[in-house]
C-alpha cells in the first residue's frame, strides 16, 4: 500500500498534491492490470474481471521536493453495460483511457470514452491514452492491429498524452503516470483545499452509543 502520510507532515518548501485518477476503456484491455503494475508492481495473466479492489492509491516523487498522490478509481466493471455513475467522473483530475493494440475495435471504444469524459468530467481534465499489451507484439509483430502512428496522431489531435504500454513487462507504465503527474496543476491541488468544513464520518466510540439502538 502507498504511504499515507498527512500532507502537513512534509517540510517547508516541499509540495504534496493529491489527485483523483479514473480509468476507462473497453472490458479486458488491461485497465486493472496497468494499475496493479503501477501500484503493487505485480502482474497476473489470469486475472479475471475486477472484483474487490477498486480504490487504490500510489504516491510518486517528481523530484526531491514534489510528491504526487494518485487516488485511483477503477470502473469495477460498471463500464460493461455503460452504467458508470456521474459520481465516477465527478472531480476527476486525470484519466487513463486504455485500448488493446491487438484489438482493432478497442481504439474506437477508447475514442468514445474520451468523448464521454469531455461531456461528463471537468473541462481541464488531463487525459492519457494508453495502448496496452505491447508485450504481445514484441515477438509477433503480426498481432498488432493498431499502428503507433494511427493512435499517436489521434492523441495529438485530441490533446491527449500517449503511451504504448505493457502491464505484463511494466514497459512505459511508470512513465505514463509520471507524464500525467507532470501535467497536473500541482499548485492548486483540489483534494486538499476547502476540507475544513467537511465532516469526517468515523465509527463512534462505544461510549457515545451507550443507549444502544432502539429496542423496536
Amino acid at each position, binding site marked *: 500500500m502507498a504511504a499515507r502520510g498527512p500532507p502537513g507532515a512534509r517540510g517547508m518548501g516541499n509540495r504534496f498534491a493529491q489527485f483523483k485518477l479514473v480509468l476507462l476503456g473497453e472490458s479486458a484491455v488491461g485497465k486493472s492490470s496497468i494499475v496493479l503494475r503501477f501500484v503493487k508492481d505485480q502482474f497476473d495473466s489470469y486475472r479475471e474481471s475486477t*472484483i*474487490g*479492489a477498486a*480504490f487504490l492509491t500510489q504516491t510518486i516523487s517528481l523530484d526531491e521536493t514534489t510528491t504526487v498522490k494518485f487516488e485511483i478509481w477503477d470502473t469495477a466493471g460498471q463500464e460493461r*453495460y455503460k452504467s458508470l455513475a*456521474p459520481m465516477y467522473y465527478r472531480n476527476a483530475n486525470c484519466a487513463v483511457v486504455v485500448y488493446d493494440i491487438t484489438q482493432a475495435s478497442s481504439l474506437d471504444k477508447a475514442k468514445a470514452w474520451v468523448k464521454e469524459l469531455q461531456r461528463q468530467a471537468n473541462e481541464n481534465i488531463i487525459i492519457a491514452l494508453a495502448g496496452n499489451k505491447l508485450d504481445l507484439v514484441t515477438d509477433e509483430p503480426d498481432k498488432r492491429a493498431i499502428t503507433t502512428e494511427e493512435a499517436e496522431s489521434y492523441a495529438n489531435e485530441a490533446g491527449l498524452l500517449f503511451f504504448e504500454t505493457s502491464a505484463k513487462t511494466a514497459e512505459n507504465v511508470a512513465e505514463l503516470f509520471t507524464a500525467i503527474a507532470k501535467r497536473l496543476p500541482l499548485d492548486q491541488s483540489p483534494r486538499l483545499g476547502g476540507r475544513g468544513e*467537511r465532516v469526517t*464520518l468515523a465509527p463512534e466510540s462505544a461510549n457515545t*452509543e451507550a443507549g444502544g439502538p432502539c429496542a423496536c
Partner: protein
Amino acid sequence: MDEIAKEYDVIVLGTGLTECILSGVLSVKGKKVLHIDRNDHYGGEASSVNLETLFKKYGNYPKGTEPWKQYGRLNDWNIDLVPKFLMSSGELTNILVSTDVTRYLEFKQVAGSYVQQGTGPRATVAKVPSDASEALRSPLMGIFEKRRMKGFIEWVGQFDIKDPSTHKGLNLNTCTMKEVYDKFGLEASTKDFVGHAMALYTNDAYLETRGAAPEAIERIRLYGNSVARYGKSPYIYPLYGLGELPQGFARLSAIYGGTYMLNTNIDEIQYDDAGKAVGINATMTGIEPEMKFETRAKMILGDPSYFPSKVRVVGHVLRAICILKHPLASTNDSDSSQLIIPQSQVGRKNDIYIACVGSAHNVCPKGYWIAIVSTIAETAANHHVELAPGLERLGRIEEQFMGPPIPLYEPLEDGKKDNIFISKSYDASSHFESTTADVRDIYRRCTGEELVVEGLREGLQVAEEN
C-alpha cells in the same frame, strides 16, 4: 456486449437508495447480484436531477422556451426529489461507515434545525434546543418552563430502560409519552417542539399510545447525540445531493462483483408452478440493436414501481420544490437548514417540513438555494393551500415545482410466498431512519437473518489486501 450470466443469486430492480444499500451489502456477503434500472440514471425517486430535467418532469414552462438557461450552468444543479437529511448518529451513517462507502462521498453539516411557534406574521422561528444549556437560552420557553425543560432533557440523557430507578416511578411499558411529559410539568407548546422537532414525529399519535414512551425517549436521545457529534444541527448532507448515496452503494456492489444495467426494461417476471419468481425477461435499450435477454435468480428485490399489482397506497405526500435567491428567513442566514412547522401551530394533523440547501453543498450555483416544502396530504384537493404555511416562510420564489400528490406505497405481502421482496416508498419524515429500517426488514425477510453491518468494514479491508 458480454453475455449475461444464466443465473444470479439476486436480481434487484430499481436503483433507489434502499435497493442499492441491499445490493451493496448482499454483494459484499458474496451473493451474485444483477441490478437493473429502467431509467438511464441511478437513484429512481432518490436521485438528484438538474434544472432542465426538473422543468421537463413538471412541464411548467411554455413550449419552445428553455427557462433553465437563465440559471447558470446546468451541471451545477443537483436537485433532490425527496427532501431528507442524514442524522449524524443515525443508522444510515452507521451503514456508510461500516461499508466504507464514505470513501466515495463527502459530507457537510446542515447548518441549523429550526422550529416555528405560532402562525402568520406573529410566528416565532427559533433554533431547536438540543441540550440543557441551549434549553435555558431558548426563546421558545418562558423562564420557569426552561427549568422544567432542562430537567427533562437531563433525565432523557440518564434514562435507562433496564434500570427502574431512572423511570421516575412511571411504568414505561404501559404509560404514555403524555404522562411522561406531565411528570415534568411541560407545557403544551414545549411538548409540541420536543415531539415534532426533536423526536421528529410528523403527527401527535405517539402522545397517547401506551408503551410508546421508550421509543420517543430514544428518538429525542438520537437527536441530542446527533447534534453533539458535529455541533451545528443533528443533520449532515452529502455534497452534490442525495443522489450520490445510491451511486456510492452501487459502486460498492460493483466492486464485489455486482453487475449493473441501466436503460433496461423488465418485459416479464417468470414464475414456477408454485408461484415463486424464478427469473426475468428483459430488454436493454439505448444501444443498437436492443439486447433482449433472460436470466434466472433465487429471489427478486425491487421498488414498488416494478410491481404495481403487489403494492398498495398508504398515503400521499405533497412536495413543492422551490428555487430561491436567498436563505430561509430567520435562520441566521444559514447556508442550509430545516424548519419544522408543527401541525398544531397551523391547525393541521401533520407537520409541514422545509428542507433548504444551497451552494455550500454543491447542489446549485452560488447565490441560489433550493427549498423543498412537504407534508402529508390531508385533503383531496387544494393541496397548495395545505402547503401555504410553509410556502409563506420562503419569501420571493424564483421557480416552484409542484405536481399532484405523490402516492406512498408499501408491499401487500412479505415476499416469502412469491420470492419477491418489495421496498416501501420514501416517506414524509425528514431523515432516513425509516429507510434503513426498511433495508433491515427486507434483508431479514429475504435471507432469514438479521443484517449486521458492524464488521463488514474489516471484511472489506481484508479483501483489499489480497
